[in-house]
C-alpha cells in the first residue's frame, strides 16, 4: 500500500495549494484543419497562457510564462556575467568587458584580462550552474521530493571521491570527468538500492543518501590524508567546490555533456510532468514509467557528475535553482531549462560574492553557497508539513 507523501506535491508547484493537480501540457494540435499562418489569428487560437508557433504542417505551443521567465533569466545571466567579467584586481567597464568577450574588441589590456583570465571562469560557472540546476530539477521531479538533489543524496560526494582517487591515489590517466561520472553513478546506485527506490519512502531516501554521502566524504578525506602536502593543497578545491583555475578540458566535456543531455530532457518535458503524479496516473496518461525514470535518472547523474568533475562538490545550487525556476514559471511543464538558467545565475552570483566580499582574499564558491543556502534548506525542512515517514 502506498501512502501519498506531501513532498511529492511540494515538488509540483512552487506556489498554489499543495497537492493541486497541475494539468499536463496540452500536446500541440495537429492536422490540416488547424494549420494557420503564424500571426495574430494563430495566437488567438492558442490556449490561454501560450504562444503558438506554426510552420507548414507543424505547430508548437510555447507556454508564455516559462518563456518570459527564460528571457528574464537569460538577461540577468548576461548582466551578472558582465559584472563578473568586469570586477576584480583590474576593473574593466561592464560594457567594455562584454564587448571584449563577445566581439573580441577593445584595448589589449582589457582583452587579456577578460578573455584570458576571467572568461574561462565565467564560462565554467555558467556550465556548472546550468548542469547542477538541470540535474536538481530532474532529480526532484523524479523522486517527487524537492529536497532530493544530487548533493543531498550523496551523488556529489561520490563523484568527488572518485575524481580525487583518480587524481591523487591511483593515477589512472583517465580524465577526472570520467572517474567523477563513475563515482556519481555508483553513489546514485547505492542510494537507490539501499533506500528501495526514490520517492517510495519519503525522507528515508534522503537520510540513506546522507549516509552514503558521509561514507564517500570520508573516503575523500582518507585519500587526501595519505597524499603529499602539495597534492593535498591542490585537492582542497575538491573538498569545498571552487571555480578558481578549473581544468579547461573538464569544462569542455561538461559543455558537450550539457549539449547532449539537455535537449532530450526538454523533449521529455511533458512525460516528466506526468511523473509528478503517482505511477498509476502516469501510466494511464500514456507514459511508460520505467524507461522515462531510467532516462531521467541517467541524465541527472551525467549532468551532476560532469559538473562535479569541474568544480568539486558545489552544494545548494541544485536545490535552490529549481525552486527559483518554479516560482518564476508557475505550474506547467517541468522547468528544466529555466532551472539550468537559474542555476547558472546563482552560481555566477555566488562566485562574484566569493571573489569580492573579502577581496583580495577569495572565498571558494562552495563555501558561499553553503553559508547562504544552509538557512534556506533549514527553512524548507522545517516549514514543510509532512506526515510521519511510513
Amino acid at each position, binding site marked *: 500500500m502506498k501512502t501519498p507523501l506531501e513532498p511529492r506535491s511540494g515538488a509540483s508547484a512552487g506556489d498554489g495549494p499543495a497537492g493541486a493537480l497541475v494539468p499536463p501540457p496540452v500536446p500541440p494540435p495537429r492536422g490540416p484543419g488547424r494549420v494557420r499562418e503564424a500571426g495574430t489569428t494563430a495566437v488567438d487560437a492558442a490556449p490561454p497562457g501560450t504562444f503558438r508557433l506554426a510552420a507548414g504542417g507543424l505547430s508548437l505551443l510555447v507556454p508564455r510564462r516559462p518563456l518570459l521567465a527564460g528571457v528574464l533569466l537569460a538577461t540577468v545571466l548576461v548582466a551578472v556575467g558582465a559584472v563578473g567579467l568586469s570586477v576584480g584586481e583590474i576593473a574593466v567597464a561592464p560594457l567594455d568587458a562584454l564587448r571584449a568577450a563577445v566581439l573580441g574588441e577593445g584595448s589589449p589590456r582589457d582583452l587579456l584580462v577578460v578573455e584570458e583570465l576571467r572568461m574561462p571562469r565565467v564560462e565554467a560557472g555558467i556550465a556548472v550552474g546550468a548542469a547542477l540546476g538541470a540535474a536538481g530539477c530532474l532529480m526532484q521531479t523524479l523522486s517527487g521530493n524537492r529536497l532530493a538533489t544530487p548533493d543531498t543524496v550523496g551523488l556529489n560526494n561520490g563523484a568527488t571521491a572518485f575524481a580525487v582517487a583518480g587524481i591523487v591515489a591511483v593515477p589512472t590517466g583517465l580524465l577526472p570527468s570520467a572517474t567523477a561520472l563513475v563515482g556519481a553513478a555508483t553513489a546514485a546506485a547505492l542510494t537507490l538500492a539501499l533506500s528501495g527506490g526514490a520517492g517510495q519512502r519519503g525522507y528515508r531516501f534522503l537520510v540513506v543518501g546522507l549516509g552514503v554521502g558521509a561514507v564517500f566524504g570520508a573516503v575523500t578525506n582518507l585519500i587526501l590524508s595519505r597524499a603529499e602536502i602539495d597534492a593535498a593543497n591542490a585537492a582542497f578545491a575538491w573538498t569545498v567546490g571552487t571555480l578558481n583555475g578549473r581544468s579547461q578540458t573538464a569544462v569542455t566535456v561538461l559543455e558537450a555533456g550539457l549539449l547532449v543531455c539537455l535537449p532530450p530532457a526538454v523533449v521529455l518535458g511533458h512525460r516528466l510532468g506526468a511523473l509528478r503524479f503517482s505511477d498509476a496516473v502516469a501510466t494511464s496518461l500514456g507514459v511508460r514509467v520505467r524507461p522515462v525514470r531510467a532516462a531521467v535518472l541517467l541524465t541527472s547523474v551525467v549532468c551532476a557528475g560532469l559538473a562535479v568533475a569541474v568544480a568539486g562538490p558545489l552544494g545548494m545550487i541544485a536545490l535552490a535553482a529549481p525552486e527559483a525556476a518554479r516560482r518564476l514559471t508557475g505550474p506547467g511543464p517541468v522547468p528544466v531549462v529555466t532551472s539550468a538558467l537559474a542555476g547558472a545565475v546563482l552560481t555566477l552570483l555566488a562566485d562574484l560574492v566569493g571573489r569580492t566580499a573579502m577581496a583580495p582574499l577569495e572565498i571558494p564558491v562552495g563555501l558561499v553557497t553553503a553559508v547562504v543556502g*544552509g538557512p534556506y534548506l533549514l527553512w524548507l525542512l522545517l516549514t514543510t508539513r509532512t506526515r510521519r515517514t511510513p
Partner: protein
Amino acid sequence: MTLRKTLLRGLLPVSAVLLAVVAASLLLGAGDVGPARAAAVLLGGADGDADARFTVLELRLPRTAVAVAVGAALGVAGAVLQATARNPLAEPGLLGVSAGASFAVVLAIVLGASATTVGPYAAVLGAAAGCLLALGAARLRGAGDDPVRLVLAGAAFSGMVGAASSVLLLVNQRASDEIRFWTVGSVVGRGTDDLMAVLPVLLLGLAAAAAVSPALSSLALGDDVATGLGHRPRRVRAVAVTSVALLVGGATAVAGPVAFVGLVVPFAARALVGPDLRRLLGVSVLLGPAVVLLADVVSRLVVRPYEMPLGVMTALFGAPVLVAVVRSSRLPSL
C-alpha cells in the same frame, strides 16, 4: 532484564572488549615501535629503550586516555540526546551539536583566544546553542514527529556552520595552522594538558547525565505521566540538554567534531541490554571508549606510515549503521 543479566550480557563483555582495545592502543602504532618493544615498556623491562619508553608513555598513553574520555562523553551524550529528543537518530554529530561546538572554538581562536584554555568553555556554549537549536527545531510544527527529518535539519545546520568555520579559517591563517587537523576530528598529539583542561567539564556532564537518567526515562511515558510521577519535564529536559552540551562541548574541544559515535554506541548498547536508560548509560560509558579507541587504532594502521583522522574513521564505521537504522522497517521507538 535483571541486574545479573545486565552484567552478563552488557557490562562484562563490553569491559573485556574495552580492555583489549586499550591494550591494542598502547601496543600498536603507525611508527617504528612494535608490539614487542611496547610490551617490554609496559612490563617495566625496557629501561634502556628510551625511544620505546617515550613513544608508549609520552605519546600513546595520553592519547589513549583522551580517546577513552572522548568516547565515554560522546557515547553517553548520544544516549541522553536520543532519550531527550525521543528520536533514535538523534546524534550530537548529526544534529549539529558538534558543529556548533567546533564553530564556537574556531570563532574563539580567530578572536585571539588560546585553544587549550578558552576552547572548552567556548565549545560548551556552542554545543548548547546547537543542542537548543536542534531540539527547538524538533518542537516546531510537525518536524518533531519525524525522526528522519530532524536528521536532515541537523545536516543542513552542520553544513552551514561548517562552511562558516571554513570561511573564518580561510581569513585567519594562524588559526588555520593551529587547528587544521582538529577540524576533522582527531586525537593525534593530544596530551595530558588538553585532557586535564576538559576533564572537569566532562565529569560534570557525566554526573548530570547520571542524575537525570531516572527522570528522563519517565519522560518517555509522556509529559503528563512524568508530571504525575513527580518529575518536572521542563527542568528534566534542561538538565539533560546541559549535560549533552557539557559532554559534547568537552569532547569536541579536545578532539574536534567526531560524528556517529553517539549513534553507534547507544544503538549497540540497546541491542545488548534493552531500552532501559540507566542500563543503557552504564553500557554506553564503557562502549563509547571502546568504539573510539578501536577507530583510532584502525586509523593508525590502515594508511601506515600516515595516520587517518579519527572523524573519517568513525564516519566509515557509523554511516552504514545510520543507513541500517533508517532501512529497518520500523524505527525503534523511544
